[in-house]
């Protein structure tokens, strides 16, 4: 995996590079602002980028815009966006054109190296990684639609993990159940939420996120 990092805090930038290199991943460039990041993407043609949301000059959402621009220049580039705090609007902007090869995570998840690496690999392999915090916000949002209440607690857990971008096997592993049980839960969830069932993870994440975001007003 060839990785470019864009992070303006030097300590964190070097820490990330150190961590990834220790895992035998190929960090080809580390950059501190959106312009040099885009340059590095042009030069090195990485397959994955790790981008901080807040970067100079205004420290607002430069990272999101840089990520969108990098994907426009190099379609198929996997991007994992790191953020100091969860902002629904950032996730929505980022996922506006589909959720494949995209991730949006809180910075501190990096410290849980195993989970961070699996999210990174998932994104690089064409999947999605959404921070549990984002999903939790979506789930607790008050909505006119009350179909979520029809879900059993276990089904809610499965829904949350699906929204994070996990595949069936990973969900089964997290919840200590069999693949078959997960499969059954997912079928129930799709039925109760009136969603068209699908086995392809990327479409599934998009459908679930869209459902959660729209408050169930538009059927996915």
């Amino acid at each position, binding site marked *: 995996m060839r990785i470019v990092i864009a992070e*303006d*805090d030097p*300590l*964190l930038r070097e*820490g*990330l590079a*150190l*961590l990834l290199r*220790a*895992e035998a991943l190929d960090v080809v460039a580390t950059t501190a602002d959106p312009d040099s990041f885009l340059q590095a993407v042009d030069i090195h043609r990485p397959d994955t980028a790790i981008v901080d949301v*807040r970067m100079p000059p205004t*420290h607002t959402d430069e990272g999101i815009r840089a990520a969108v621009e990098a994907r426009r220049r190099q379609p198929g580039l996997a991007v994992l966006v790191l953020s*100091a*705090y969860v902002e629904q609007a950032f996730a929505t902007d980022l996922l506006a054109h589909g959720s494949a090869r995209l991730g949006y995570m809180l*910075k*501190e998840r*990096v*410290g*849980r*190296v195993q989970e*961070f690496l699996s999210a990174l690999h998932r994104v690089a392999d064409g999947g999605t990684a959404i921070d549990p915090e984002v999903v939790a916000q979506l789930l607790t949002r008050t909505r006119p639609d009350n179909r979520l209440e029809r879900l059993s607690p276990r089904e809610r857990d499965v829904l949350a993990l699906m929204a994070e971008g996990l595949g069936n096997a990973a969900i089964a592993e997290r919840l200590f159940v069999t693949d078959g049980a997960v499969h059954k839960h997912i079928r129930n969830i799709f039925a109760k939420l009136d969603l068209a069932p699908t086995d392809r993870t990327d479409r599934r994440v998009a459908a679930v996120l869209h459902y959660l975001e729209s408050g169930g007003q538009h059927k996915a």
Partner: protein
Amino acid sequence: MPVNDPHEGDEPVRPWDPIVRGRATLDGLEQLVGGFGTAVLALLTLCGVIISALACVVGIGLLVLPTALRVLRALANRERARLSRSGPELIAADPVPDGLLAALKQPVTRRELCWVLCHASFGLALGLTGVSLPLNAVRDLTYPLWWQLPPPGDTAGAGMSLLAVNELFDAFLIALMGVGWVVLTLLVVPVAPRLQAWHGRRLLAAGPEADLALRVAQLTATRAAAVDAHAAELRRIERLLHDGTQNRIVAVTVMLGAARRAVAHDPAIAEAMLEDAQGAAEKALAELRGLVRSILPPVLEDRSLSDALTGLAAACPVPCEIDADLPGRCAVSVEATAYFVVAEALTNVARHSGAGRATVTVRRRDERLRLTISDNGRGGARERSGSGLAGIRHRTEAHDGTFALTSPPGGPTTLNVSLPCGL
């Protein structure tokens, strides 16, 4: 806008110091002459108003009286401007409305009519007296030099009407009277302008309704400034927490995570990573301390404003002397504002002035906290939006305080801030 009084916090007044007294007399004389001028104009205007009012009986006055009132308004505004130069500001009144009745209905017009009566009589008399006192003094003091000159006709000065002047001795007696005139001048002239201005200040001040509107506008502006300053401050703190402290702690967790992974296969690398993690944690703590201090310095709360300012002076790269004489304490917000005014001002001094020395004076007088920050630098400091000085003004005005900056090119720069103590 609050009135900026550059004389605030002056040295204590010594009324009998000859220089101070002399200067006060000259100032008073200048104002008396100005007042005398407007009083003469007031007399002419009064005559005009009376004549046109009388002419109303035959009808033509109805056409002339509005013009007379407009002249009166112009004169009153001139007097307001003159009085504003030597004391609290008097707001100019709006032009006289069309129509005689509308004009006469205005309370301002009625007050101006009273004023013109007072000023044309009392004000004129006082001005005449005030101006003649020093003239008498000069005439009598110099009398021994010219007493032998042939008198121009029979009329002569006050001295000659009392004494028959036949020899030099008598002339010197008259010069002695001149000394009396001088003393009288020094006694009367400094206070006379206040007496002369008294009716003007009372009658030409905006009515209670206008005053309140002005005050409301001022409060609205300062409140907006307070809210802005508050929002900017919150933004600054948020930035420091997010991009500073939080990033440090994230870095700590990243390094700890990496160290845990490395501990099994390469303890040496793990050790190095733990070291980095500890360094990052310490840096986070240091930044957090700095942030807390910038929100509200603990020393300000635990000790006193003087101690907090002494701490600031010690941290300032330009040698700085703190002269704080503060019995008791002010409201916390006022002390915090005073602290930040001094902090910001000293930052400016260190950054831009090129000064070799700075002085901070803090006094509490008349329930106001008065701060004077001066330096011997190159001067020419100006207030631009977004600059430290604009920040000081906003913070000050948010507390209903006043802000005055004098910084001629070449220096020295003096910043005067006065805050209500709020207790």
